[in-house]
C-alpha cells in the first residue's frame, strides 16, 4: 500500500515544527555549526530543500509592489507550504541512478541507500522538483519518508509534530479523497483550491499538496517532465550524426576525393604566389 503525505498548505502556520522534528529524528546537524544565515529576501532563512533540510517551510510573501500603504496591508497575503520530497510514482532520481542506490521501498517511497550511493550526483539534476542534494559526505540525501519509523509502525516525524495537521500521513488513496473533499469545500467557500500532484504531474506524487495559487508561486513546476523524456530523441539524433560523420568520412577518405583535393589546393595556392610576385 502506497504511503505518503497530504500537505494542506491552507492550514500551515509556518511554525517549522516539521523541519525541527525532521532534524531531530534524522540527526541532521545545523549548517555551518548553527551560524545565523539570512536569505535577505524572505522571513524564511532556510531557502530551499537541501542535504540537511528534508522538510522546508516555504514562505510566499505576496506583498504589494509599493510598500506605502498607510498602515494597511492591502492585498497582501502570506502563503506557507511545507515542502518535501514528493516520492513520485515515476521518480526521475530513481530512473537515472546508475548504482541502484535509489530504490522503491515496500511503502512505495523512494529511498537512497547510503551504503550504495557513490556520489555521482545524477539524481540531483534529474529531480524536476530540485529535492535531492549532495551532502558534505559526498553522497546524495533527501527525505526518506522516515523509512525507519515506518518499519516500526510509526508515522514520519514531521507529520507527528505538525500542530495544525497541515501535514497528514497515511495511505495515498485515502489521503487523496480527503484532499479532494477539502479542495471542494474551500472552493465552495470562495477560495479556489486544488490538489497538486495528481496523475498529470509526472504520473502522480505520493506526497501531494493543496494549493490556492499557481504551482509556480509555490516554486513547483506546473508541467514537470521526467528527465528521460527527450533521451530517446537524443540517442536518435546522436546516431544520425554518427552516420553523417561516417558517410562524410567515407567520402573524404576515398581516393578520388584525394585527387580532387589536390585540385582544390592548387587553386588555393595560386593567389599566394601572385602575391609574392
Amino acid at each position, binding site marked *: 500500500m502506497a504511503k505518503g503525505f497530504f500537505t494542506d498548505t491552507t492550514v500551515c502556520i509556518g511554525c517549522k515544527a516539521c523541519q525541527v522534528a525532521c532534524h531531530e529524528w534524522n540527526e541532521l546537524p545545523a549548517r555551518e555549526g548553527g551560524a545565523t544565515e539570512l536569505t535577505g529576501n524572505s522571513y524564511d532563512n532556510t531557502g*530551499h530543500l537541501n542535504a540537511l533540510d528534508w522538510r522546508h517551510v516555504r514562505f510566499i*510573501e505576496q506583498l504589494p509592489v509599493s510598500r506605502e500603504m498607510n498602515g494597511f496591508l492591502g492585498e497582501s497575503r502570506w502563503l506557507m507550504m511545507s515542502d518535501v520530497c514528493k516520492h513520485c510514482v515515476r521518480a526521475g532520481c530513481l*530512473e*537515472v*541512478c*546508475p*548504482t*541502484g542506490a535509489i530504490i522503491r521501498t515496500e511503502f512505495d517511497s523512494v529511498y537512497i*541507500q547510503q*551504503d*550504495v*550511493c*557513490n*556520489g*555521482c*550526483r*545524477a539524481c*540531483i*539534476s*534529474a529531480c524536476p*522538483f*530540485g529535492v535531492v542534494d549532495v551532502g558534505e*559526505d*559526498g*553522497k546524495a540525501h533527501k527525505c526518506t519518508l522516515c523509512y525507519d519509523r515506518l518499519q516500526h509502525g510509526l508515522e514520519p516525524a514531521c507529520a507527528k509534530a505538525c500542530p495544525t495537521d497541515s501535514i497528514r500521513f497515511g495511505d495515498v488513496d485515502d489521503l487523496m479523497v480527503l484532499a479532494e473533499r477539502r479542495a471542494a469545500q474551500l472552493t465552495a467557500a470562495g477560495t479556489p483550491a486544488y490538489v497538486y500532484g495528481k496523475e498529470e504531474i509526472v504520473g502522480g506524487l505520493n506526497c501531494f499538496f493543496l494549493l490556492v495559487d499557481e504551482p*509556480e508561486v*509555490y*516554486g*513547483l*513546476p506546473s508541467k*514537470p*517532465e521526467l*528527465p*528521460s*523524456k527527450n*533521451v530517446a*530523441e*537524443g*540517442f536518435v*539524433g*546522436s546516431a*544520425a*550524426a*554518427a552516420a*553523417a*560523420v*561516417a558517410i*562524410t*568520412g567515407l567520402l*573524404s*577518405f576515398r*581516393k578520388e576525393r*584525394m585527387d580532387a*583535393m*589536390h585540385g582544390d*589546393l592548387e587553386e*588555393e*595556392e595560386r593567389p*599566394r604566389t601572385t*602575391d609574392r610576385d
Partner: protein
Amino acid sequence: MTDFLLQLATNPQSGYGLPPHWGWYIVLYFFLGGLAAGCYAIATLLDILGDRRDRDAVRLGYLLAFPLVVVCGVLLILDLGKPLRFWHMLVQSENVPELLLKPWSPISIGTWLVSTFGLFSFVSFVGALIETERLRWDVARRVDRRVRDLPRPLILLWEVLGVVSGFSLGGYTGVLVTGTSIPVWHNAWLMGALFLLSAASTSYALLMLLLMRHGRAHHDSTVSKLARGDRSAIVMEIAVLATMLLLLGALARPLIAGGFGVIFWLGVVIVGLLAPLVLHGVPWGRMTAERRAMLAAACVLVGGLCLRFVIVMAPQYPAVHPWAL
C-alpha cells in the same frame, strides 16, 4: 511576465533540477572522451578505407585513443563523491557478481560505454605499439600475428563494432545532459548530435595537428583527407548548433548571453567554427597553406573545449538571470 520573473527571482529553486555540481573534471571528460572516441573512429575508418600512406595516421589515432579514455576514466572516478565506490556503477554492490546496467539511464549506459570502448581501444593500442616496434614482448607479438591472420570479415566486424562503441561514447555525453531536469539541457535533445560532431571535428583536428607537426605537408594525401573530413564535420556542427539554439529559443539565454555568451560567440562560434572554415578556404596574408591548416586545427580544438565548458557550466551557474526567460 514580470510577475513570473519576480516570482522566479524570489523562488530561485522554482521547480527545476538543481545543478549537479559538475566542474572541470566533467568538462575535460566530455572534451577528452570526444577526442578518444573520434580518434579511434577516424583511425578505424582510415584503416578500412585508406591506403598504405595512411598507416601513420591510423597508428597515431590508436596510440591516442586508449590513453585518452584511461584519463577519462580517472577524471570520472575523481569526480565522484565517493571515488572508491566507482565499481558500484558496474556491479550490484549488494549482490556482487551481478552486473548493473540500466539501459534507460544515460549515465549507466555511459559507464558501460567507457568500459567497452576501453577494451576496443586497448586492443588497437597494443596493436599499434607492436606495429611501431615500441612493444617487443614476444608473447604479445605472437598473439598480434595470430590476430592479424584472422579472416578479413572477422576483423572488419570487430572494427565496425569498435567504431560503433566509439561513436556512442562521443555522442552519449550530450544525451547525458539531455537526461536531466535542468531546462536548457533537458530541452536540447540535439546535444547528443552536437557533441558527436564536435568530437569528430576536434579529433580530425588533433590528428592533423600531430601529423603535420611531424613534418607532413598540407597537401600530403592523409592530411588532406583529414582536412576534408574536418570541414564537413564543422559544417554539420554549425547546422546542428544553429538548429539547437533555434529550438531552445529563449531557454538558450544562459548559453548565448552574459559572460558565458562571450565565450560562446568568441570561443565556440568564431574561433571554433568559422575561423577554421575561413582558414581552410581562403588564403590569408603571407601564411603558407601548412601554417593555415595547423592554425585551423588549433582553433577547432580550442573551440571544442569552449563548447564543452559553456554547455556544462552555463546552465548550472547562469550569470545573467537564473532562468533567463
